[in-house]
């Protein structure tokens, strides 16, 4: 438990020292997407009976919580290859699992902060969306899945350059195709089937339901919960691979 607290507290202290800068960076891409796709398209573009902006915001939360959760990998890489503080963790008498949980909690915290930024933006614009416990529960699960994957990738890579490759090959495509910017329903079945499988699709669909007062499908929740546990398991396994 102490190991978890140490690792998580360190991430929190880093967050505290860079709080405003970080908040700004969390806001940049959602604001750009909102302006470009939301406001740019105007209120007349409808998806179902919602305006496109109302459709877009939960998708942006799904995307941002994925990106910022996964983004813990950048922090870990800096810690591992540049600051070398990762060796402190390797030498310390803490379990690999408490290390993983500490870093995942760090990623989830960033993801929740990033989601708060978008939620605040949308509250300011006065849209008819609600953000209840079901909404935040899904943000939490989505962030956990991707933070754990972020930890895994940070443990498996051998140098910093590999990281950009993983982000460009896996995360960026998911950000666009995971039901964030358009409803997957509109796709032909052959394209839809594989996209339904990616975790982000479940998160964006669930968040969209929760934000517009509709019941979230239990299937989406269960899939995300199972994936979080699996991803944490994967991260746990990967920690030992980082040793030379």
């Amino acid at each position, binding site marked *: 438990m102490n190991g978890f607290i140490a690792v998580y507290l360190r991430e929190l*202290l880093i967050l505290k020292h860079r709080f405003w800068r970080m908040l700004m960076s969390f806001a940049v891409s959602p604001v750009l997407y909102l302006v470009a796709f939301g406001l740019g398209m105007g209120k007349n573009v409808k998806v179902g009976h919602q305006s496109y902006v109302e459709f877009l915001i939960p998708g942006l939360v799904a995307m941002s919580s994925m990106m910022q959760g996964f983004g813990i990998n950048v922090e870990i890489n800096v810690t591992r290859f540049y600051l*070398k503080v990762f060796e*402190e963790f390797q030498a310390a*008498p803490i379990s690999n699992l408490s290390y993983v949980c500490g870093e995942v909690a760090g990623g989830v915290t960033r993801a929740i902060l990033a989601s708060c930024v978008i939620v605040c933006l949308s509250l300011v614009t006065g849209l008819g969306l609600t953000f209840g416990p079901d909404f935040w529960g899904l943000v939490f699960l989505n962030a956990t899945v991707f933070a754990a994957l972020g930890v895994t990738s940070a443990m498996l890579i051998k140098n910093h350059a590999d990281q950009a490759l993983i982000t460009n090959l896996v995360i960026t495509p998911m950000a666009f195709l995971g039901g964030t910017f358009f409803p997957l329903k509109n796709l032909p079945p052959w394209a839809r089937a594989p996209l339904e499988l990616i975790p982000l699709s479940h998160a964006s669909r669930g968040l969209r339901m929760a934000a517009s007062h509709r019941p979230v499908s239990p299937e989406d929740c269960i899939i995300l919960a199972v994936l979080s546990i699996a991803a944490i398991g994967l991260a746990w396994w990967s920690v030992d691979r980082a*040793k*030379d």
Partner: protein
Amino acid sequence: MNQSDSTPFAVTIQNLTKKYGSLKALDKITFSVHKGELFALLGPNGAGKTTLVRILTGLTRPSFGIAQVNGQAGLVPQALNLDYDLTVSENLLIHGLLYHMPYPAIGSRIRELLAYTEIAHKARATIRTLSGGMKRRVMIARALMHDPEVLFLDEPTVGLDPHIRRKIWSLIKRVQGQGTTILLTTHYIEEAELLADKVALLDHGTIVALDTPRNLKARMGTYAVDIVDDNGLATNYFPDKESARKAMLDMGEQGRAITLRQVTLEDAVVGLTGRTEK
């Protein structure tokens, strides 16, 4: 400090080997460090000093052999590894938590160690703002947080000015005085000569010599005569001052600078490693 051979071991190493591909960074190393001893590993760049320390502190896996530390280890690695955005106290706090120290004990231990390492006035400064010598002292304070029984110092004075080096040397001696076993690596011969109870000479992954500084020096003699002339530098070694002085008189010629001095550890190192050069 003299260690009798009956003192228990703090570090035991047997047949330790580490291969990186075809390169043997360590090749069947065997030695032990007694409790309370200050043991110096002396060797040129690439000798395998860091590899050995990393294996002993669990950062690197050995290829085979035994590397055992009896008791908690503390580590000051060769490369600075502090959190630059955090303060001095915060860096120590995280370390205390990593080593399962109870929260209330951490605060008082931080104050104690920052006073001990003479950086108390920087407790709230971020690491980024410290000088190199201060960062080194934070590293040492951090490694001492959990009161380790064996402290590993990997080149603790590299790149520091002579004043700070002396400060760190005296700090290291005080830590040993409190009963901590210390294994220190260095390529500064005078550092090993001044601080160490025992010195192991590491070269190309093998131990070339292991003894007290005094015995290592005695292998060369007690007095040395350096002759500098147009042919370069030559050093002759003698068992006592009388024979050295006599030889000096015989060698005295025009255009030569001749110095009589005591044998240093450097003489022993040059003599011992020269023979093993590949």
